[in-house]
């Protein structure tokens, strides 16, 4: 099981002929992901690592009606256009890897996506999603040495930071546990999916027994999750590490970390996020690698 992607996932890569997209396509194929098509307008008829390239999504879908996931890897100012195209064809899962998408575009994407209840968007600025049990990964997550970090197991990971998605999963592995699904959701001000959208999916996933989240300063996603948990209950243990507490005693206005990791006018301070999550019953790791010990506390030893 796991969430968002499975052995039935068939991926189309938007912008597949780009340098990074082509490299990541190779990594996905090597891992076992079924990448069946790509789109780069004007480059239809080419192939990238054996994957056929089409000019339009419509053309690709007519040849490969089984496509049910889109990986968006186009330049920042082209993301809105590409995602609207994918939304038009009701693709169930859209993962936006591109960073630095304008806020207005992200807001319009989210607004249009709300009219498509069957679609789930993760990103922008996502490092991708991996489901090691199904041996499928979308996006650069895990890099070239995926199996060192990711093995199947019962822990779900949601991280605002791409790099820390893998580091968090590594801590989990060192503690003796595996991953049901891990993903980077990006730290942008407006996200296709926030913690509060994904935690319920893990609650409903039989494979997942505990959830680990990596939060960052800025925005209100952690507070929104705390509110959700207080209202609807915590059906599985959640462990959180919220990075950036040092920001509270730094000069105002300095930007640390990602675009979203900015404390503006006292909004989104890590101390407040930690307080809200703790009140809701979330276990807080004071230092990142304490996640391992906390997991052992709540899960005991994972059955082999």
């Amino acid at each position, binding site marked *: 099981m796991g969430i968002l992607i499975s052995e039935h996932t068939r991926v189309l890569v938007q912008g597949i002929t780009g340098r990074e997209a082509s490299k990541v396509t190779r990594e996905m194929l090597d891992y076992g992901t079924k990448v069946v098509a790509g789109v780069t307008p004007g480059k239809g008829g080419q192939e990238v690592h054996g994957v056929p390239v089409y000019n339009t999504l419509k053309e690709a879908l007519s040849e490969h009606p089984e496509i049910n996931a889109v990986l968006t890897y186009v330049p*920042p*100012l082209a993301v809105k256009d590409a995602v609207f195209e994918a939304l038009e064809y009701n693709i169930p899962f859209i993962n936006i890897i591109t960073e*630095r*998408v*304008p*806020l*207005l575009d992200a*807001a*319009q994407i*989210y*607004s*249009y996506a709300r009219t498509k209840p069957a679609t789930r968007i993760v990103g922008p600025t996502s*490092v991708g999603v991996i489901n090691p049990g199904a041996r499928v990964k979308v996006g*650069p*997550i*895990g*890099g070239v*040495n995926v199996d060192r*970090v990711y093995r199947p197991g019962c822990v779900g990971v949601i*991280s605002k*930071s*791409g*790099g*820390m998605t*893998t*580091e968090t999963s*590594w801590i989990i592995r*060192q503690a003796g546990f595996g991953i049901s699904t891990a993903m980077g959701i990006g*730290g942008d*001000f*407006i996200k296709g999916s926030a913690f509060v959208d994904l935690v319920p999916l893990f609650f409903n996933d039989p494979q997942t027994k505990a959830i680990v989240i*990596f939060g*960052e*300063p800025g*925005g*209100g*996603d952690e*507070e*929104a999750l705390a509110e959700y948990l207080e209202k609807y209950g915590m059906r599985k243990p959640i462990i959180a590490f919220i990075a*950036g*507490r*040092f*920001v509270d005693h*730094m*000069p105002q*206005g*300095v*930007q*640390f*970390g*990602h*675009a*979203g*990791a900015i404390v503006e*006018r*006292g909004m989104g301070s890590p101390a407040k996020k930690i307080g809200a999550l703790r009140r809701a019953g979330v276990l807080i790791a004071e*230092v*990142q*690698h304490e996640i*391992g010990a906390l997991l052992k506390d709540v899960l005991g030893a994972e059955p082999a």
Partner: protein
Amino acid sequence: MRLYEYEGKKLFAQVGIPIPRSAYFTKAETGAIGADPQLERIFDDLGGRGVVVKAQVLAGKRGKAGGIRFAHSPEELQELVEGMIGTQFLGEEITGVLIEEKVEFVSEHYISVTYDTVRRQPVLAIGREGGIDVEELAREHPEKLGLRHFGPIVGLLPWVARDAAAEVGFTGRELHKLAAIAVKMWELMVRTDARLVEINPLVKTPNGEYMALDAAIILDSDAQMRHPELNFPPRQATGRPLTERELIAQAIDEGDYRGVAGKYVELDGDIAMLTSGGGGSITLMDAIEAYGGRPANYTEYGGNPPAEKVYRLTKVVATKPGLHGLLIAGGIANNTRVDVTFEGIARALEEIRPPYPIVIRRAGPGEEEGLRLMRELAERLGLDMEVHGAELPMTEAARIIVEKAAAYRQRVEG
């Protein structure tokens, strides 16, 4: 990017939001001894009875701090301008002032459009009372703030703004006038890709018109590429002038878009940080503090930068006076090459030959080669260096450098 008031008001004028008549006066034009004839002309042009002189700084709450003053004669204006320009104010140097006509008004209000990051929609806020701290108002008297979310594809329609205004007690023609301003604010948000457009205060004049006495605009830096027309000069956001080291670091990324290595914030601790990735770097900063250490800087390199960039960053990070330790650490990289970036670090360390302890923890593409390079360097130069790969938790490396730095400090300070 946060705009100065005078820049914001120029944009207001472009979309038809009423502003007072004004003149912007910069440092380049002062320095004259005795009366500046230009200031006298400005005084006369703005009505000849009295003007407002406003320090152009990015910090908020400048009124309370004395950054907004009144001049009733050209001589007084001269004196105020000379006293302001070039001085430090709220952590910034005042390089220019905005001189405005004095506006009569009967009431002060608040209006803003920004994005609600939880609802993931733009939101309009109208306050009956303005000129105040809006966060405080939202916290203590939420009923005095009319909030309306709206769809970013359709945009802000006048009825939504009238609705918000009516809720906080505006009536009659006020509703239409406020709605017109709100709609223009959204137009400006779209036209310039702003994250925030705020007018505080928006005043009502004796003849019933509204006018923006202040302008707060934050542009979305991710959209700058599609706005060549908005060529505002770059500015710092540290609340203090950049240090020499920060200026040197800033130049690292100029003209080379391969990866990022020019982000450096100088702090007053004694453990140098050479950390990678946004999330990893802030996690390591926290860990250093949690174990009782004090970082000498913040940095984050990433996006697979070339060796040369990381070499230059290392030269900035590791040569700060008074260091007692250096942490070179990051998570398991998905993309950034460890061998390439460590080649740059090794070259810089070879030149610097740090006497203080160094702890390394890194993994990712090219890690065997990268870590080997560092071990060889340590042996050749006799450095006090520990080299770890993924087997050591990243934040454990922070604990080790804090301990080693404390021991080293004791040794050198006796």
